[in-house]
């Protein structure tokens, strides 16, 4: 045989051998591969560049990492898909569609801002994909589920809605503002957004019952930069306390309240003040501000609350905002639902989630049923979810209510104290 013929035989021969090897390996490999199960894909949607958006992503990430470390769900690892919706309804809808159609997630958790959550809701119905709302509060979210159950049953609301949040503030007001400080009057001051509409209705109904006369009801555009005229109005009415409904705004009105030395205590809901980075953003002007939130360092709402708060703070260098707690819990609740139904099928997941009775970081979580007003909404109650109220004192978030988790008494900033004393 000549050299070129030998070369050809060698080349062909080695090529054939390689093919046999590859074929052999690929026959053996699937058998080995079958032992590593396909991951369970879960999506999370939030505005990355907002503090109250990053907290959603981080809360989900922490839960997924813990679950995977403990062996996954029924032996399958969880794969988390994160989507930035830029706080825009259109981007959120596109993210939802992409998550379901391209990335094949079995369920989605998120987002911040009720307007965005409401925009996503019909898509959860159309694409038959469970959507757990963790960062919005409008009562319309569960309103849709109640009115069109067969269509919208895929949506669950894992955070206290505005109606309940208003009641929490009123309960706090009755115990602390009226009961301990002797306050008599209040002004309701809320940003004009979807979540504050039911909130203000709740405030106006329950504050008088708690002992606070409502002198005025102010709603301002979330684009407001200069709050001076509004604070001047509050001051001219001599209110003892401002009951806020703030989430889209936070830094500006708080800083201006402090710098203008508005002689009224600032309480109610100031959602952005729930993160420790708020102290830095306001350069400490948030001293004395009171707000309700899901969890606070030092408040043992449940045995899981403190460990989560500590681990989150260690990992992300800021305390968790309220929706980090709710999103973290949601992932675990999804896990429980999957394990209960032994399936990731959408309708089975819905059934599984409806059976939720989970002790999370915010409390004991159950969802209202089909015939309740807030179908698939988080149940509110002393032994269920009541949330916690804290006050910024000397640079720290100190829980002040309810009594069983409170660590200190309410402090009144000096520029407020003088005013109230004068009014008595």
């Amino acid at each position, binding site marked *: 045989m000549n050299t070129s013929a030998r070369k050809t035989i060698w080349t062909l021969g080695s090529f054939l051998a390689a093919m046999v090897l590859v074929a052999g390996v690929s026959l053996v490999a699937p058998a080995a591969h079958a032992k590593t199960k396909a991951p369970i894909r879960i999506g999370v949607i939030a*505005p990355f*560049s*907002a*503090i109250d958006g*990053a907290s959603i992503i981080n809360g989900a990430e922490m839960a997924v990492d813990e679950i995977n470390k403990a062996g996954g769900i029924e032996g399958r690892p969880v794969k988390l898909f994160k989507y930035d919706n830029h*706080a825009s309804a259109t981007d959120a809808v596109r993210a939802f569609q992409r998550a379901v159609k391209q990335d094949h997630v079995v369920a989605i958790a998120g987002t911040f801002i009720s307007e965005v959550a409401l925009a996503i809701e019909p898509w959860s119905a159309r694409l038959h994909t469970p959507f757990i709302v963790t960062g919005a509060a409008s009562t319309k979210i569960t309103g849709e589920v109640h009115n069109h159950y067969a269509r919208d049953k895929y949506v669950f609301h894992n955070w206290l809605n505005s109606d309940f949040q208003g009641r929490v503030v009123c309960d706090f007001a009755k115990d602390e503002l009226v009961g301990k400080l002797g306050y008599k009057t209040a002004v309701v001051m809320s940003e*004009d957004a979807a979540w504050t509409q039911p909130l203000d209705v709740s405030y106006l109904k329950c504050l008088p019952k708690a002992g606070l006369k409502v002198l005025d009801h102010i709603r*301002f*555009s979330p*684009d*407001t*930069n*200069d*709050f*001076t*005229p*509004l604070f*001047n109005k509050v001051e001219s009415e001599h209110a003892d306390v401002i009951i806020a409904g703030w989430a889209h705004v*936070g*830094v*500006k009105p708080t*800083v*201006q309240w402090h*710098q*203008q*030395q508005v002689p009224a205590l600032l309480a109610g809901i100031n959602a*952005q003040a729930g993160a420790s*980075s708020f102290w*830095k*953003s*306001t*350069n400490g*002007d948030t001293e004395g501000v009171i707000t309700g939130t899901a969890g606070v360092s030092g408040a043992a709402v449940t045995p899981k609350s403190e460990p989560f708060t500590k681990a989150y703070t260690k990992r992300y260098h800021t305390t968790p905002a309220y929706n980090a707690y709710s999103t973290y819990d949601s992932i675990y609740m999804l896990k429980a639902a999957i394990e209960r139904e032994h399936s990731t099928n959408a309708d089975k997941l819905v059934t599984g989630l409806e059976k939720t009775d989970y002790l999370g970081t915010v409390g004991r979580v159950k969802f209202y049923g089909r015939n309740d007003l807030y179908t698939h909404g988080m149940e509110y109650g002393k032994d269920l979810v009541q949330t916690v109220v804290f006050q910024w004192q000397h640079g720290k978030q100190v829980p002040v209510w309810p009594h069983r988790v409170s660590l200190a008494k309410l402090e009144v900033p000096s520029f407020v104290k003088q005013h109230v004393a004068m009014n008595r």
Partner: protein
Amino acid sequence: MTLLLQVLVDGFVIGALYGLGAAGFTIIFGVSGVLNLAHGGVMVVAAMVAWMVAGGILHASLLTGVVCGVAAGMVTAYATYYLVVRPAQRSRRIPDEEREIFILTATLLLGIVIQEGIAYLFTSNPVTVPPLVSGVVHVFGVRTPTNELLIGVISWVVLGLLWLFVNRTRQGKAVLAASINPHGLAMLGFELPQIHRLVWGLYGLLGGVAGVLLATFEGASSGLVGGLTASAFIIVVLGGLGSVPGSLVAAYVIGFMETVTAYLISPAIRTLPGMVLLLLILYVRPQGLLGRR
């Protein structure tokens, strides 16, 4: 009476801040012929750096923060000129009749890049720079944060220095001449590139000071970039493109109109009357209140 005083005080400060921001914007147009749509970026970058140094991250002294903030404003202005505006002005591949639109679009895009960059690095949540002085003063029964009054005073001091510079120094007079007739100035032997260097640096200084002061009063965030550019644009067109006195007058007109609207009607529509006025002026006197061209 108290309400009137509150409006006067608030309007005075707002007008001064607007004036400071708009003065730089109109000088750049007058000398370079550029409508810098990344204007808000200069102010917000200055604010963010001041916060980072003095407030949030480095915890240095307030003075250091302010100086760093203003310097950052100047860096941003220079970056806008050398990286975006000058290459576009000199490029032979852009047809002359399209050049202005090209520069306009380029600065608009730069503004968006700055906005998104700030959001990525600092989140879109607002931050505030610690106030220069704390406490309140009582002016005729109106309680005002001392810082707010100080901002008004500082703005006017800076504007006064600007006036001195433009009218009393050789360099400054050259800048004024360049805004009237750049070719004539070149024929007299002045180096135009040097003038441009000076003007953009001055612009960065004015915008930087305005941004830092704004952050001590209202706070700053990435979302403000577009709005600040729009405000400056409206004021400068109302006052007359290229005229600094015009933009100052317009700044106060707009400032007071906004303040009165916010107090008497609602803060939600505070910008509306100003914009309606702008439309009317463009119809009746398109060169603006004190414009030359």
